[in-house]
C-alpha cells in the first residue's frame, strides 16, 4: 500500500479494478440474470419488514395531527410515492442515457422496466392526493401545484410507455424512448417551476405545513421507514421485471434455453 500523504486519497488500484470488473460483468445479461435472481428474495423480505414497520408506525403508533386529525395518515403513502415517481423517472432517464451512449443492453432493459413501476407510483400519488384533498380542501381534485405537476409526470410516463411499445424493433424503441426520457427529464424542472408560478399567480401560495411548524419525530420515523420500503419495493420489482425482459431479449442464446427448460 502506497504511503498516503495527508489530503491525498490513493484508492488502491485493486478496488477500482474490481469495481470496473463488476460493472463490466454486470453488463453481460446472463450474469445480471443470476445476480438479480439471488438478490430478489433478500430485497423482497426487506421490503416486507420495512412496510410492516412503517405501516404500524404510521397508522397505529403516530399521534393524530393537531390540525387534521387522523386524515393526515395518508401522507405515509402519498409522500413516498411522490418522491419515488420522480426518482424513478430520473433513474429511467439515466439508464436510458447509459444505454444510448455506451450501448449497454442491460441499461435499456432497466430503463424499459422502470416505466410501468414509476407510472404506478405517480398514479398512486394522484389517487391518495385527491383522497387527501377531500377532507382538507373539500373537493377531490384541486389544481394544486404539486398535484398538477404529478399529473403531468404521469402523462410523461404514459408517453414514454406508449412510444416504447409503438416501435417494433426493440433496440430502436429503447433508443428512441431514451431520447424522450432525456427530453422529459430536462423539462420536469421547467414544468414544475411553471406550474408553481402559475399556481401562485392565480390562487396565492397555499400555506400548508406538514403537521405544524416542525414534524414531530414519531411522524417522521414512519415516513422515512415507508420511503425506504417504497425504494426497496421498487428495486425488487425492477429486478423481477428486468429478469423477464432479459429472458425475452436473449431468447436465442443457449443459456436462456437451458434455464427455461430446466425448471
Amino acid at each position, binding site marked *: 500500500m502506497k504511503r498516503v500523504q495527508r489530503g491525498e486519497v490513493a484508492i488502491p488500484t485493486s478496488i477500482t479494478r474490481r469495481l470496473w470488473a463488476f460493472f463490466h460483468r454486470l453488463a453481460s445479461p446472463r450474469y445480471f440474470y443470476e445476480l438479480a435472481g439471488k438478490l430478489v428474495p433478500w430485497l423482497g423480505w426487506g421490503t416486507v419488514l420495512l412496510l410492516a414497520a412503517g405501516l404500524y408506525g404510521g397508522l397505529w403508533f403516530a399521534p393524530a395531527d393537531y390540525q387534521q386529525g387522523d386524515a393526515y395518515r395518508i401522507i405515509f403513502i402519498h409522500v413516498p410515492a411522490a418522491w419515488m415517481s420522480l426518482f424513478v423517472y430520473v433513474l429511467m432517464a439515466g439508464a436510458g442515457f447509459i444505454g444510448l451512449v455506451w450501448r449497454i443492453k442491460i441499461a435499456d432493459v432497466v430503463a424499459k422496466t422502470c416505466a410501468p413501476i414509476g407510472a404506478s407510483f405517480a398514479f398512486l400519488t394522484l389517487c391518495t392526493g385527491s383522497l387527501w384533498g377531500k377532507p382538507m380542501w373539500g373537493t377531490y381534485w384541486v389544481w394544486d401545484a404539486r398535484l398538477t405537476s404529478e399529473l403531468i409526470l404521469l402523462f410523461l410516463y404514459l408517453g414514454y410507455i406508449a412510444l416504447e411499445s409503438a416501435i417494433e424493433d426493440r433496440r430502436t424503441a429503447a433508443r428512441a424512448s431514451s431520447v424522450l426520457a432525456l427530453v422529459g427529464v430536462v423539462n420536469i424542472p421547467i414544468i414544475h417551476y411553471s406550474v408553481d408560478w402559475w399556481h401562485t*399567480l392565480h390562487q396565492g401560495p397555499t400555506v400548508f405545513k406538514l403537521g405544524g411548524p416542525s414534524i414531530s419525530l414519531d411522524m417522521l420515523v414512519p415516513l422515512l421507514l415507508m420511503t425506504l420500503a417504497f425504494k426497496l419495493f421498487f428495486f425488487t420489482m425492477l429486478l423481477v421485471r428486468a429478469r423477464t425482459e432479459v429472458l425475452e431479449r436473449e431468447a436465442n442464446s443457449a443459456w436462456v434455453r437451458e434455464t427455461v427448460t430446466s425448471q
Partner: protein
Amino acid sequence: MSGTGPLGAAGAVLRRDLTLFFRHRSDIINPLLFFIIVVTLVPLGVGPEESTLRVMAPGVVWVAALLAAMLSLEGIFRSDFDDGSLEQLVISPQPLALLVLAKVFAHWLVSGLPLVVLGPVLGASLFLPDRAMGTLVLSLLLGTPILSLIGAIGVALTVGVQRGGVLLSLLVLPLYIPVLIFGASAVSSAAAGLPVIGPLALLGALLALALTLAPLGAAAALRISLS
C-alpha cells in the same frame, strides 16, 4: 468554392421546404382553419356573454393556437420520410441539427407565423381588450417557434411509427404546458393591465433553450428513427 457549405445547404433545405409547402397548400390552410373553428366553437359552447368570454379569451386563443401548431407538425418530416429524402438529409455531410433547424424554421414560417397573424383577429372575436393585442402577438411570436421546435423532437421520434399522430400528441403536449402557461398568463396580465415583462421574459428563455437544444435532440431522434 467547392460546393455550398452548411449554411448553403440549410438555405437550400429552407427554400425547398417553402416551395413544397406553397405547392401543397392544403397542409398550410388546414391547421389555420382548425385554429379559427376551435376558437369559434368556444362561444357556442360557453355562451355569447361578453363577460365570460373576455376572461377566457387569452386561454382559449392560446390553447387553440397550441393545438393548431401540433396538428401541423406531421408536415415537417412525414413526406420526406415516405419518399426517402430524409435519408439523404441524414447522410449529407452537413450537420444534421442545422438542416433540422432549417426544416423547423420553414415549418414555423408556414404554420406558426399565420397563427401569430390570426391571433388578434380571433382574440377580438372573444372580446379581448385592445391593450392586450400587442402582448398576444408578442407572446405568440415567441411561443409558436418553441411549439415547432419541441414538436420537431416528437415528430422525429414518431416518424417511423404508422399512425403516429395520436402518439405524437401524447408525447408533445406535456412538454407544451410551460409555453401555454407563460403565454396565456402574459396575455391575461396584459388584459388586466398588469406588467407582462415577467412571463414574456420566461417565454424568451424557453425559446432560447429550445433553439439551442431542440435541433440536437431532433437530429439524434431522426438518426434513431431511421435506423
